[in-house]
């Protein structure tokens, strides 16, 4: 009954004219950003964030959420038509989507991606409606020990999902924590790493960093390594988008499985939509009776990752709303937005701002429906965007990043800092230091440090408190396992190699 009441509250907010327009603008922006190279959801939201300071927070968040899940839809277009993923979350779609396009089935590939995203997105919203309040209720029992161990687990999971070089992931996380400590210490009021520069006493604003590291740094990377591919000359007639009966049969379970995998991966801090689409593709290939068709234009190979990335982008809101812990760079930027509006996401948000929470969740039904329509009827318009010269896109990014950084404190100092972070972000990317851990650690840095200090004050300096509280102990053990995962993987590989190279008939080696 509660669920229905919440749904009613949510729709009464999401269906106002103003919020529908915000949702439409968000999904359109998301779709466009997904199509355009060199700009992703976190960048787009970071660039728009300073401009929405005066907007209603619910409306602005509805728009940002629309951008987030809209990007996954838009990235599919480039994956299918030019074999270049518009977003990292659509990398797997290239494998079969482009092959389908080569066979003249681009319309069907885009269609199954849109339908899969819509169905899985809707499933994800339904589960989110039940899951997020339950998670928030559980989180009401969290004290500082649980919050610290939760952030520790989130940082640890970054080493699992973070990339090939876990040590560099840890360095990146530490850099984020370090940047978060710059400025006045909230407990003692003592300046840290400010070196007498008055502008540094307040610390670095998150928007300044994100505009630099995601916005401008991305420009340098895109100039250096342009995402080029040949656009397939496909004519899009409406009937090309209709799936055949065989297509429906082949993709129905892929969509459901992809949706469930996506939801589960999305709620894990640091899980992310890219991992979700990757795992869904692998799971689908393993579940298929004809795995050899994958990579040759199998429709399930498009349906599964596309469903998963959309479901994950929606379930990623569960840890953000219920715990105040972002699971991905995009939700990290949104957390910065919450802070900008003076709202603290977490378990109490469901009680203090039910209109915001349920309005945002309900808007996802509307947004997904709008995206389904857009992706069936407006594809040619988005394909035309692929012809936009990158110099224009680059100009837009530089303008929005500069204005965004300036508007934080109306200071040119922030604009220079933004450029400094852009250079740092560019160098980090070139040297294979991942950016995402830095951003997540930066956002969670204060929560992590304050919780740690509060816990140690409570326990009189004893670390055993993290193990005597069951929820905290669970998070700490998960964190330790996550940090050890590279070692475990390395050991497992050696063991397997040893087993393979071991002689299968030891007796044959015995001398007669």
């Amino acid at each position, binding site marked *: 009954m509660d669920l229905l009441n919440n749904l009613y509250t949510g729709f009464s907010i999401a269906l106002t004219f103003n919020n529908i327009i915000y949702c439409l603008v968000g999904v359109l922006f998301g779709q466009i950003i997904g199509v355009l190279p060199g700009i992703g959801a976190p960048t787009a939201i970071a660039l728009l964030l300073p401009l929405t300071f005066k907007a209603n927070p619910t409306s602005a968040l509805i728009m940002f959420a629309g951008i987030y899940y809209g990007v996954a839809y838009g990235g599919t277009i480039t994956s299918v038509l030019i074999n270049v993923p518009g977003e990292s979350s659509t990398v797997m779609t290239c494998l079969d989507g482009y092959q389908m396009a080569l066979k003249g089935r681009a319309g069907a590939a885009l269609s199954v991606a849109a339908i899969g995203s819509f169905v899985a997105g809707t499933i994800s919203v339904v589960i989110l409606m039940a899951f997020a309040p339950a998670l928030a209720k559980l989180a009401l029992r969290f004290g500082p020990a649980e919050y610290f161990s939760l952030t520790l687990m989130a940082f640890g999971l970054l080493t699992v999902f973070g990339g090939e070089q876990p040590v560099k992931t840890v360095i990146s996380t530490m850099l984020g924590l370090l940047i978060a400590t710059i400025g006045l210490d909230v407990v003692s009021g003592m300046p840290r790493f400010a070196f007498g520069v008055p502008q540094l006493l307040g610390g670095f604003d998150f928007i300044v960093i994100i505009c630099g590291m995601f916005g401008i740094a991305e420009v340098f990377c895109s*100039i*250096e390594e342009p995402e080029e591919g040949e656009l397939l000359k496909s004519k899009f007639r409406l009937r090309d988008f209709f799936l055949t009966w065989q297509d429906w049969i082949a993709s129905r379970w892929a969509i459901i499985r992809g949706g469930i995998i996506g939801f589960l991966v999305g709620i894990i801090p640091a899980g992310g939509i890219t991992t979700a689409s990757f795992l869904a593709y692998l799971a689908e290939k393993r579940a298929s009776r004809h795995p050899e068709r994958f990579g040759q234009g199998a429709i399930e190979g498009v349906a599964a990752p596309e469903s998963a990335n959309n479901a994950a982008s929606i379930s990623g809101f569960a840890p953000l709303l219920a715990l105040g812990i972002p699971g991905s760079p995009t939700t990290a930027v949104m957390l910065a937005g919450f802070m900008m509006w003076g709202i603290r996401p977490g378990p109490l948000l469901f009680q203090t701002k039910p209109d915001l929470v349920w309005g945002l969740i309900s808007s996802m039904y509307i947004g997904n429906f709008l995206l389904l329509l857009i992706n069936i009827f407006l594809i040619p318009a988005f394909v035309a965007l692929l012809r936009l010269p990158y*110099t224009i896109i680059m100009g837009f990014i530089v303008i929005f990043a500069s204005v965004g950084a*300036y508007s934080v404190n109306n200071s040119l100092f922030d*604009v220079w800092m933004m450029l400094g972070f852009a250079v740092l972000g560019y160098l980090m990317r070139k040297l294979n230091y991942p950016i995402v851990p830095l951003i997540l650690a930066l956002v969670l840095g204060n929560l992590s440090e304050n919780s740690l200090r509060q816990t140690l004050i409570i326990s009189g300096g004893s670390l055993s408190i993290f193990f005597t509280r069951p929820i905290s102990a669970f998070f700490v053990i998960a964190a330790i396992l996550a940090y050890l995962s590279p070692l475990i993987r390395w050991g497992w590989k050696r063991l397997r190699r040893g087993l393979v190279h071991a002689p299968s008939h030891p007796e044959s080696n015995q001398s007669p």
Partner: protein
Amino acid sequence: MRMADLIGGVVVLLLGLAVVFFSSQLPYYSEYGPGPGFLPLWVGVVIVGCAMFVLVNVLRKHEKIGVFFKARTKLGLRVLAMIFITFLLLPLLGFSIGLGLFVGITMRIMGRHHWASCGLTSVVTAICIHLIFISWLTIPLPQGLIGW
């Protein structure tokens, strides 16, 4: 790339050592529990440890691991220099004109578009920046000596 990785590792190591040094100047523990130097010190220690691991790894492996300077790196650096100059000129030119000029000039340098279309884009961009950010969103952007 190996050299770049090595230099990167050394820079991270030096940063870690600096963090350890400066955080050791802050109180590690106070009467209310961990002090302001507590977390930064440990962060510095972990950075130093990880940087040493990276350095050892780079020195141990001898295979080639990609290229740092690529064919188009110069173009990226040119754009960085242009952004730098634009930011230097922002107090004089103002945001609208400064960023408008930046867009036009990068179009010319990178895209090799015709001067006329670059000039027109500059003017249109400057007008749009002024109308959207200064007039509509009322962001008090610097308007330079011309006052626009």
